[in-house]
């Protein structure tokens, strides 16, 4: 251990910018791994780290309060918390982070974990109408839950990705009328492709959602500062008291604009060990990144730089980044975790492993869409790259194994609960540009679908 002490890996100053899931888990891992130096966490929200998945589920149903979602700590941290202040700049040469209140935080090593924020409605005047919401922070969810408590006559959900679908589900469970507008041809199509998207269409309609696909909301209308309704690209109009803007996320990288790092709208690019690249593609050794804001190469997906807005990725990547921050070269680890996520909506549990959009074909390997249970397996050029289960999460481990071993697609015969006549079909992953909502998995390399390179910031 003496050599590690000599090169300063177990002492010195570490600053973590971003005090949510990734930042917290990284801090805990640093202490677990014997880091004894100064540790500072910077968060732009005034709260201690909290868990976001319940915000679009239990909180909107009134089953849990937004303030009850604090993340449990794994251990004591002995850290300095700078909450309620955002980082506005990074001086890589002087090795310091500049905060909005003017403070400069010097560091020996830095972890960037600034995550994402909700993409706002593009017209500020309309976005400011009372009754227009986004769902990203605890306060967002608290405000929206209160608005739903008031019993609006109709809720308009703009964008049918996971967040939009979960919001629509919560509204229906509360007995509220809800309209979902999605520019793509089906809900969830951006993350799961058209085959599963078609199933989600039927699901939402069966639950009484007024689902309108292939349209965009062209204007939000208000009167006296209150939302009254919306206009659609097909010329139709809708009256609504509440609109929930679910357009996906924007990566919080603006503060790094002058840092010389490879940071931009797609995230902060890093190597397999979470070390950030400079704008010239040269890897740094004192700046690391983890969580939603990171773009990292994944060997299972042909080393494309991928960015994942997944809870599990934030934890796993934070742990790897923290380990590498306090470990000498030969002991460093790559971040290789297979991506996975879950959602619950309309009484169903949806879980996924792999990257469903990294696919050209999909097959229903088990279950049947009509019976509220299925396993959809995705393939790309003859190997299995992802699986999505509905109420069948216990099989995921098997399919994860197939993904990790690049098993041939389609999977062989013999699985229990398999309908014999189902053949692989195109997975029908759309060009993200045609979607209302941004993708939660951004494949930013050049395969398998070149159009995927054209993800752009802004509405």
């Amino acid at each position: 251990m003496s050599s590690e002490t000599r090169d300063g890996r177990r002492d010195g100053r570490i600053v973590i910018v971003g005090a949510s899931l990734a930042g917290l888990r990284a801090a805990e891992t640093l202490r677990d791994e014997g880091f004894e130096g100064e540790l500072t966490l910077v968060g732009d929200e005034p709260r201690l780290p909290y868990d976001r998945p319940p915000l679009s589920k239990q909180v909107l149903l009134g089953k849990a309060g937004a303030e009850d979602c604090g993340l449990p700590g794994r251990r004591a941290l002995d850290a300095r918390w700078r909450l309620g202040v955002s980082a506005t700049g990074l001086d890589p040469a002087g090795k310091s982070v500049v905060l909005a209140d003017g403070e400069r935080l010097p560091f020996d090593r830095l972890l960037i974990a600034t995550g994402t924020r909700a993409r706002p409605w593009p017209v500020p005047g309309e976005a400011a109408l009372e009754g227009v919401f986004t769902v990203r922070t605890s306060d967002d969810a608290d405000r929206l839950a209160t608005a739903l408590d008031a019993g609006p006559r109709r809720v308009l959900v703009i964008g049918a990705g996971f967040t939009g679908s979960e919001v629509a589900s919560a509204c229906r469970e509360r007995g509220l009328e809800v309209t979902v507008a999605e520019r793509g041809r089906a809900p969830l199509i951006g993350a799961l492709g058209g085959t599963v998207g078609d199933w989600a269409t039927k699901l939402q309609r069966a639950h009484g959602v007024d689902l309108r696909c292939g349209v965009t909301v062209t204007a939000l209308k208000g009167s006296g500062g209150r939302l009254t309704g919306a206009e659609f690209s097909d010329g139709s109009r809708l009256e609504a008291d509440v609109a929930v803007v679910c357009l996906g996320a924007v990566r919080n990288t603006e503060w790094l604009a002058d840092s010389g790092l490879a940071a931009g709208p797609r995230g902060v690019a890093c190597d397999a060990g979470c070390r950030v690249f400079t704008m010239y593609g040269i890897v740094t050794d004192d700046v690391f990144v983890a969580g939603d804001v990171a773009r990292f190469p994944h060997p299972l997906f042909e080393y494309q730089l991928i960015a994942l807005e997944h809870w599990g990725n934030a934890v796993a990547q934070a742990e790897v980044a923290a380990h590498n921050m306090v470990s000498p070269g030969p002991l460093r680890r790559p971040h290789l975790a297979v991506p996975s996520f879950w959602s619950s909506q309309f009484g169903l549990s949806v879980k996924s492993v792999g990257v469903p959009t990294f696919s050209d074909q999909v097959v229903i390997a088990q279950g049947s869409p009509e019976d509220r249970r299925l396993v959809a397996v995705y393939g790309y050029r003859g190997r299995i790259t992802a699986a999505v289960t509905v109420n069948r999460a216990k099989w995921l481990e098997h399919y994860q194994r197939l993904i990790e071993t690049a098993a041939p697609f389609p999977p062989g015969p013999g699985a229990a609960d398999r309908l014999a006549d189902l053949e692989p079909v195109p997975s029908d992953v759309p060009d993200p540009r045609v979607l209302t909502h941004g993708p939660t998995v951004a494949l930013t390399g050049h395969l398998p679908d070149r159009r995927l390179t054209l993800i752009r910031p802004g509405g």
Partner: protein
Amino acid sequence: MPSPSLSSSPSPSPSPSSSPSSSETLFRRITDYAHRADPYPLYAELREHKVARQEDGKYLVGTYDEIAALLHDPRVSSDVRNRTEPDPALLPPEGLPPAFIGRDDPEHDRLRRLAMRPFGPPHSPGRVDALRGDITRIAEQLADGLRDKERFDLVDDFAFPLPVTVICDLLGVPSGDIPQVHTWADTVVTGLDFTPGEDPGPRRRAAQEARAAMGLYLGELAEKRRRQPTGDMLSALANDGGPDGQLTQEELMVSTVLLLIAGHETTVNLITNGMLTLLRNPEALERLRAEPELMPRAVEELLRYEPPVQFLPQRTPLADIEVAGVTIPEGVPLVLVLASGNRDPLRFPDPDRFDPDRKDNQHFGFGSGIHNCFGAPLARLETQIALTTLISRLDGSRLLEDPPEYRNSPVLRGPRHLPLAQAQR
């Protein structure tokens, strides 16, 4: 059709004329009562082969990764009706469907979900935890009854009455019926035994009859509860439905027979093996006496070290499955030796050491995958409370026999009796 990859198997291909190689007799030796007290060297031998074809066509798997893969593989059936040569011992009684432990998706899922409604999340998240007070009270009463005895049998005087009282109460079986229920359960479990060289016919017929009688008994009890619910699981199963409807009367019978038997024998063995292990490891015992908050982790280690279900004899591949370079053919009996996987040195460092502090301990003590032990939360709670109570109330216990006399079953392995002596104060 010969399977090409069989020839690459580490064990030589079987031929009827030659005498079987030693790896082909592993199952015979594991089930031989002579090895009941310590089957672990045989498991180590099994792990050298990873997959070992047996003289009778069974396939044994004993390494952690391979077992994990097969437990999660949807091509591995738990329904013995998928065997090319059905094993009458494992079939349900005439006219009754198999319980969910012996079914595959989607029926397994529906039946298990219905049985879970009154027992655990999402519909009854507080059920098991609400039993904490009752379990503690029963454990303390039983332990207090032992304090003044110079010698006692841990099985009959503690490890058996505790979980049986709890499961009967939970299901809604009147305490007066417990002796009859116990006789049936014992007969059913005996019917599952593998005794080399013995005609299993009579034993198995008796087991089928006991199973049927138990089913009728529970069916009638459920009828009573249907008219007069009493807040127990039987009442809930008989009266409450969800989106899947209700269990049919037959499904209710076989499901509750399963819960009663499974909630019976396994926990008895876990508690008894636990006390045996702690008495063999006095340092661990002293540590747990001083720091009872370590008990949950110690029970996990116990589940790894002495799992109450040693192997799963019911699995059958629905297609040819390649495991560690060996093709296990469709329709053959596939035996997953969980207790061997739990001692795999590739997964657990120093696996033959009982380490109550062990971390990263994802053992197979409750299996894994869709058939993962239904009653695991209850078994954990009972064993944590049982061992904590025993070691705090009884100090100075010592083993009178080591190894003790074991039950016959190689699957539900545990001491038949565990005679202990106490230093008198």
